[in-house]
């Protein structure tokens, strides 16, 4: 039984990582830092549906791979840490409850934590390692918008997928 669970875990994380890569590379609006995209939508959906570890690995790995494929390899380690933590924190707050039954306050808290993690995480790490404080600070509004849209759409998507494909609950670990 444990073997079966291990195979399922690997399959879940692999497919969710691919989902994050595709969502990151589908819609791109160029900014000074690179581009804004739908990666936060996928990450929040995974966090609301699949739990903390799936969210951490798939979000971190997926965004890092997307940066690599897009020619922004220098951002891959930063994306891995920031988006990985974003998925982990949001999932820990909502704790795999059904997206429909999550209390409004919890949703708001998850949204605030998600936006804070992305904007402050990118600000701190890119200020230290890549671009310096002023350029990193200029990116905060973009990151807030991107992660805010991500939380709202991610929550809506989690509810819609649960209705369209109920067995999704059995895939969470």
């Amino acid at each position: 039984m444990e073997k079966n669970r291990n195979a399922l875990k690997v399959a879940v994380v692999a497919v969710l990582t691919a989902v994050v890569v595709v969502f990151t590379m589908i819609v791109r609006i160029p900014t000074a830092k690179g581009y804004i995209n739908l990666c936060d939508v996928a990450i929040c959906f995974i966090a609301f549906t699949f739990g903390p570890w799936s969210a951490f690995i798939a979000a971190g790995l997926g965004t890092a791979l997307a940066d690599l494929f897009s020619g922004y390899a220098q951002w891959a380690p930063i994306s891995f840490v920031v988006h990985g933590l974003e998925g982990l924190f949001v999932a820990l707050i909502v704790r795999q409850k059904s997206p429909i039954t999550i209390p409004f306050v919890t949703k708001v808290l998850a949204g605030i934590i998600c936006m804070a993690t992305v904007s402050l995480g990118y600000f701190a790490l890119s200020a230290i390692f890549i671009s310096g404080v002023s350029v990193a600070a200029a990116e905060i509004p973009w990151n807030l918008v991107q992660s805010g849209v991500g939380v709202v759409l991610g929550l809506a998507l989690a509810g819609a997928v649960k209705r369209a494909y109920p067995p999704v609950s059995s895939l969470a670990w």
Partner: protein
Amino acid sequence: MTTNTFVAGNGFLYRMDPRAKIMAMLLICVWLFLPVTLEGLYITVVLLILVGSVNTGLRHTAKTFRSILPMLVFMVLFMPFNVRLGQSLITIGSFTLITQEGALQAARLGGRFIGITYACTLLFATTPMTDVMLALRWYRLPYKASLVVTLSFTYIPFIADSFTQISESHRLREGGVLEKKRSVFKRLRDLLPTLTSALVVALRSIPYLAMSLEQRGFGRKEKRTNYHSLDSYRHVFTDSVISFSIPVVLWFMFRVR
């Protein structure tokens, strides 16, 4: 959507062992943060760009530069205004616009950013992703982690194709409503059914993938699948010594004394 970062070529970097190249990339990235002279930093960056041009061609080198240009411009334009220390370079009346310290910091950050970009890009442009994975396995990346990444590579085109097809069919159903006329929020809201359908298609494949992993021996002691080795690269020791020596030599040449 392309998931391939490899640029075909036959320069010396292509023949270099991927393990040594990963080491070189990491050491160069660390080197760029060490206290080195500005001249030394830019000489190293120019060398990196030259190595890139010789191996992957001018077109790829220029494409890489274009991808970081907006941020570089942003950095060069705004950084000097934020640093108020040091001798003033440009003043308007009594207001100091740019100081020497600010200009130097902007130059250093810009050089470091270009250097990191080319060091990372060169590794993935001159090494097939399979070889990068094998090299990471050699560096003791866990089997499960490697499996997740390689499986993701196979699923990315599948999910991207599903999304494109679903997106096209949804667009046909909309009856030619022009995208430009819709607001960003409306476009994002209209994207929801497409994203839901694409996700359901992707999630449905998970049980089948888990089943096929079990049937291929995942979790058993006697695995039916295994990774190739990097035996085709015959100069791992020499390449590793070169990869280690270059940053060390550059450090002794350009460190701040």
